């Protein structure tokens, strides 16, 4: 086995994987109504293609990607569109976003699915097919995969294509079950990715607490040059920069991407959806979600995008007593949902019904004692304490100088802090403030330019009016022609400057 290159810091966390990974993936029930958000990815929101009253088929595109970094959205089942409006979506704010609501007709009738032979497609056509299938990173970030599958503009060939099956967060087991049960399909999807990217090597990183998944993936990779690399169970090995370091020893630069060091990384579930898109002609309309914590029958469900979380809970036997919070994602990086009526999105990998045992007890926040425990666990090699002081004092420039934006918000620092300081909350706050300030600056600059353009236009119009007046008064020039014969009157340019009424 090849050497591993451990990353700095990290944590041994509680695992809680066995609650949900003992049973096979169950098919989710078809709910009567699906609410499909049009923004389930990083980038521009998809443009709705349907109107209330429209009949849609399962797999029909209902949201068109708007721009290069955007993704398509599809109808998860057949039925009638009842609304295209603002609906609550899973987001830490609990706010609403544009969604397409579909009343299911119960027939679940597909569009014509056309598998494609990707060997015969031009790479750009293949990427377009993947883009039109709405494939985004299913690890949680939701970045449009077609963008990552395009290496145009990079001079060096890709060294490593990496598949991320680490699944390091406690409680979550959806990738584990997917690898155990559908390893062949994942590898088939990986082959398509490798076909597009032409990497020198293909690595699959899986944490060593999933021996069954490792065995299944190794078996599926037999006959290929793909290598399954078990990695030690250490949170956050599933974070992309940390996994790249772990498997290849290469450090992703600050403000850079793994592709800058010749590595492109995808989640195992993303590879599976690429397989479905190409070999089955099916867009991303469902995903495997781990439902765990304080529910009666924890497990993994393959549910349609747009299914309300409450349906998932119901299918898993309902809440047990003492649920305090419903968390989307894991306990380390997830966020509390405001309601269980929010729908499943492409990024929803886990639904954790957390009781007092799952939540860290809310202990009083004490002053920082500068113990440095946070620094020892930071996988991004930052100085969390320094960041904390700056973020707390709202010294955003200094926080940025301490590489605030290299923080992956993994929560290790908050987890070990003996003073129970919610460090990550401070970092999120500081990041958001900096982004907002930057946006504000851009707006101000735009307004300044527009104001300047207006002043110039007004000045130009004034001069033109004066010139016109001078030209219109030839009588006077004829009476005293010797006065100023050198002045040449510019002819007024018609139409110019009349774009606005003024």
């Amino acid at each position: 086995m090849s050497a591993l290159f451990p990353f700095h810091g990290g944590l041994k966390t509680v695992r809680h994987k066995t609650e949900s990974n003992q049973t096979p993936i169950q098919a989710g029930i078809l709910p009567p109504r699906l609410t499909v958000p049009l923004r389930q990815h990083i980038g521009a929101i998809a443009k709705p293609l349907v109107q209330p009253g429209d009949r849609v088929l399962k797999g029909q595109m209902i949201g068109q990607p708007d721009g290069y970094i955007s993704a398509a959205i599809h109808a998860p089942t057949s039925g009638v569109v009842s609304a295209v409006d603002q609906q609550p979506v899973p987001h830490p704010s609990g706010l609403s976003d544009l969604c397409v609501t579909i009343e299911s007709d119960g027939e679940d009738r597909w569009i014509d699915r056309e598998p494609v032979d990707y060997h015969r497609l031009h790479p750009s056509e293949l990427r377009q097919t993947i883009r039109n299938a709405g494939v985004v990173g299913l690890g949680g970030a939701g970045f449009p995969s077609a963008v990552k599958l395009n290496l145009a503009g990079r001079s060096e060939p890709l060294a490593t294509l990496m598949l991320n099956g680490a699944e390091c967060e406690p409680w979550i087991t959806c990738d584990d079950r997917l690898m155990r049960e559908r390893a062949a399909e994942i590898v088939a999807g990986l082959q398509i990715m490798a076909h597009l990217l032409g990497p020198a090597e293909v690595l699959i990183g899986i944490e060593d607490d999933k021996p069954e998944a490792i065995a299944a993936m190794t078996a599926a990779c037999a006959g290929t040059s793909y290598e399954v690399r078990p990695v030690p169970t250490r949170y956050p090995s599933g974070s992309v920069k940390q996994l790249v370091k772990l498997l290849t020893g290469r450090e992703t630069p600050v403000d850079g991407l793994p592709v800058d060091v010749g590595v492109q990384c995808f989640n195992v579930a993303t590879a599976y959806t690429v397989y479905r898109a190409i070999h089955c002609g099916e867009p991303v309309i469902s995903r495997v979600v781990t439902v765990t914590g304080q529910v009666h029958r924890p497990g993994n469900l393959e549910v349609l995008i747009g299914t309300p979380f409450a349906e998932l809970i119901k299918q898993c036997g309902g809440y047990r007593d003492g649920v305090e919070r419903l968390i989307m994602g894991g306990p380390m990086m997830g966020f509390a949902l405001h309601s269980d009526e929010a729908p499943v999105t492409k990024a929803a990998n886990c639904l954790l019904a957390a009781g007092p045992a799952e939540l860290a007890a809310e202990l009083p926040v004490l002053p920082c004692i500068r113990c440095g425990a946070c620094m020892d666990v930071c996988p991004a090699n930052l100085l969390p304490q320094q960041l904390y002081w700056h973020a707390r004092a709202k010294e955003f420039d200094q926080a940025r100088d301490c590489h605030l934006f290299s923080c992956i918000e993994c929560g290790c620092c908050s987890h070990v802090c003996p003073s129970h300081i919610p460090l990550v909350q401070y970092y999120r706050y500081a990041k958001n403030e900096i982004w907002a300030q930057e946006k504000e600056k851009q707006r101000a600059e735009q307004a300044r330019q527009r104001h300047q353009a207006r002043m110039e236009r007004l000045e130009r119009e004034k001069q033109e009016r004066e010139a016109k007046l001078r030209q219109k008064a030839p009588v006077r020039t004829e009476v005293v022609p010797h006065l100023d014969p050198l002045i040449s009157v510019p002819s007024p340019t018609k139409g110019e400057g009349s774009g606005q009424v003024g």
Partner: protein
Amino acid sequence: MIVAVIALGLLAGASGLLLGFAAIRFKVEGDPMVEQIDAVLPQTQCGQCGYAGCRPYAEAIAAGEADINRCPPGGQNGIAALAELLGRDPKPLDPESGIEKPKMAAVIDEQSCIGCTLCIQACPVDAIVGAAKHMHTVIARECTGCELCLAPCPVDCIHMIPFAPSITTWKWTYPAVEVKAAA
């Protein structure tokens, strides 16, 4: 003695020549301070400060004619930024120039608009489109919320609407934790 006088005289002469040359060669056009102050101002061009726009106000501050606390859209944060830039102490906003309000954008009630073009002429950033006797509308993205279009409207059909919170503008708030002193 004489040697020292000559040496110092030569030195002074050489320095003078050098400085004279530098003054011509590296002459700075305009006042760079104005640019820096202008960059801190919010560019709403609202004129609440008493000047014709953000740049004239920046020029007045640079010339020492205006105080730094006359910009309501910039608010207390803007005053703090100006104070830091100019090395002065921040002070509260001058109530004479206005009060700090949440960010808003103008919206024209298109049913009532009579197409008089007065608001178009008033808008400092050309954010209103329309033509005489035709409906006007505000390009929301470009509106700075300066409110200069409100007064000229003869039918009072322009309203200031605060920005609604949305997923794209939502921010994590400052952690509401109470730090307890260790016992």
